[in-house]
C-alpha cells in the first residue's frame, strides 16, 4: 500500500465559486442586440424606447392618490394622468418598463449576476454611496423632465432617427458627466 498521497488530494484544484458571474457580452454584440430591439419598436409602434416616462406616470398617479385636486390642477401631472388607456398606469411605457425589469432579471439570472450588493469604489462608505445614488437620481429626474426624455427616450431613440434636440441633449449629457467626473472620483475609483 502506497502512503504517497495522491496528487489531487495534496494539491486541491482551486474550484471556482459555484455561481461565478459570467463575463459581460461583447459591447458591439450587445449594441447590435439593443439596436435591433429599438428598430423593432420603430417598426411595430413607430416610437422609440423609454424609461423616465413610465416613472413620471407613476409619480403623477401617486400624487393623484394623495391629493387628487392638486394633481389635476398641475398641467404637468394632469398630462400624465390623462395619458393612459383608461388608467394613468396603463401606458405603453409602463408595460415596456415591466418588460425591462423582467429582461434584466432573466439576463442577470442566466449569467449568475443576481446579488444584493452596493456598486461603489473602495474609498467610499456604503452610506455615502447610497446618499450619492439618491442625489444623482433626483438630479437625473429633474434633468430628464427638462429635456423631455432620458438616455433611453432621447439619446438612444431620438439619436437613431436623427432628432436634432436628441443629439444636442446627448452631447450635453457627456459634457456634464465628464465635467463632474474629477470631483466624483472618490466614489468610483
Amino acid at each position, binding site marked *: 500500500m502506497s502512503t504517497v498521497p495522491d496528487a489531487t488530494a495534496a494539491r486541491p484544484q482551486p474550484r471556482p465559486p459555484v455561481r461565478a458571474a459570467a463575463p459581460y457580452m461583447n459591447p458591439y454584440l450587445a449594441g447590435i442586440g439593443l439596436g435591433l430591439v429599438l428598430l423593432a419598436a420603430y417598426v411595430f409602434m413607430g416610437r422609440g424606447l423609454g424609461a423616465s416616462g413610465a416613472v413620471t406616470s407613476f409619480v403623477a398617479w401617486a400624487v393623484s392618490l394623495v391629493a387628487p385636486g392638486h394633481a389635476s390642477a398641475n398641467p404637468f401631472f394632469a398630462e400624465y394622468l390623462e395619458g393612459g388607456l383608461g388608467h394613468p398606469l396603463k401606458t405603453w411605457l409602463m408595460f415596456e418598463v415591466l418588460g425591462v425589469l*423582467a429582461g434584466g432579471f432573466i439576463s442577470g439570472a442566466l449569467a449568475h449576476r443576481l446579488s444584493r450588493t452596493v456598486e461603489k469604489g473602495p474609498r467610499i462608505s456604503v452610506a455615502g454611496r447610497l446618499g450619492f445614488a439618491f442625489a444623482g437620481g433626483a438630479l437625473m429626474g429633474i434633468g430628464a423632465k427638462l429635456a423631455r426624455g432620458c438616455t433611453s427616450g432621447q439619446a438612444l431613440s431620438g439619436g437613431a432617427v436623427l432628432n436634432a434636440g436628441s443629439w444636442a441633449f446627448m452631447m450635453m449629457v457627456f459634457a456634464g458627466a465628464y465635467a463632474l467626473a474629477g470631483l466624483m472620483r472618490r466614489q468610483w475609483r
Partner: protein
Amino acid sequence: MNAPFYKFAAFGDEASLVIAFVIGIGFGFFLERGGFGSARKLTSQFYLDDLAVFKVMFTAIVTAMLGVFYLSWLGIMDLSLVDLVTTNLWPQIVGGLVLGFGFVIGGYCPGTSLVAAVTGRVDGMIFILGLLAGIFVFGEAFPFLKGFYESGDFGKLTLPQAFHLPYGLVVFLVVLMALGGFMGTGWVERRFAPRPEES
C-alpha cells in the same frame, strides 16, 4: 405590409401593450448583458478605461438608424409616421447637463437603474427613489418652469432639416463618426488603463 404597423392599425391598443412588454424584455436583457446593471461599469466611461457605454450606445444607434433608413428607402416604412419629440433647444441643453451630473453622481440613468435594482443592486434601488423625488419636485415646480420648458422651440426637427443636408448623407456621416470613435476606443482605454498599484 406597411410599417410602423401600429400606425397602420395592424393591431390595437391592447395588443400594443403586449408588444411593449416583449420589447421591454429585449431592452432590459441587452442592457444587463452589456454590463449596464453595474454603476462601476457605467461610470468607467467617465474615467476612460472602459468605454463600453460609448460602444454599446453608438452601435445601437447606428444599427437602429440604418434599419429605419433602409426600411424607409425600400418603401416599407413611412418615416413621417415615426414619433419625434419636439426640439426645445434650451431646456434640452440644460436638462442634458443636469442629467449628465446626475449620471456620474448617481451612477445610473433611469433605464439602467431599473436593471440594477432588479438584479439586487441596493444603490440602484435608492437611485430610483431619488428619481421619483426629482420628478416630483420638477412636477411641483412646473408652473414656475413652464416658460423655460417651452423655450427654444424648433418644433419637430431632424439633423438633416437643421443643416439642410440629405437624410442619407447624415446617416453616412453618423456611421463614419461612430466607426472613427470605435477605432479610437482601444487607444483611449490603453492610455487610461489603471496602473497595477492603483487597482
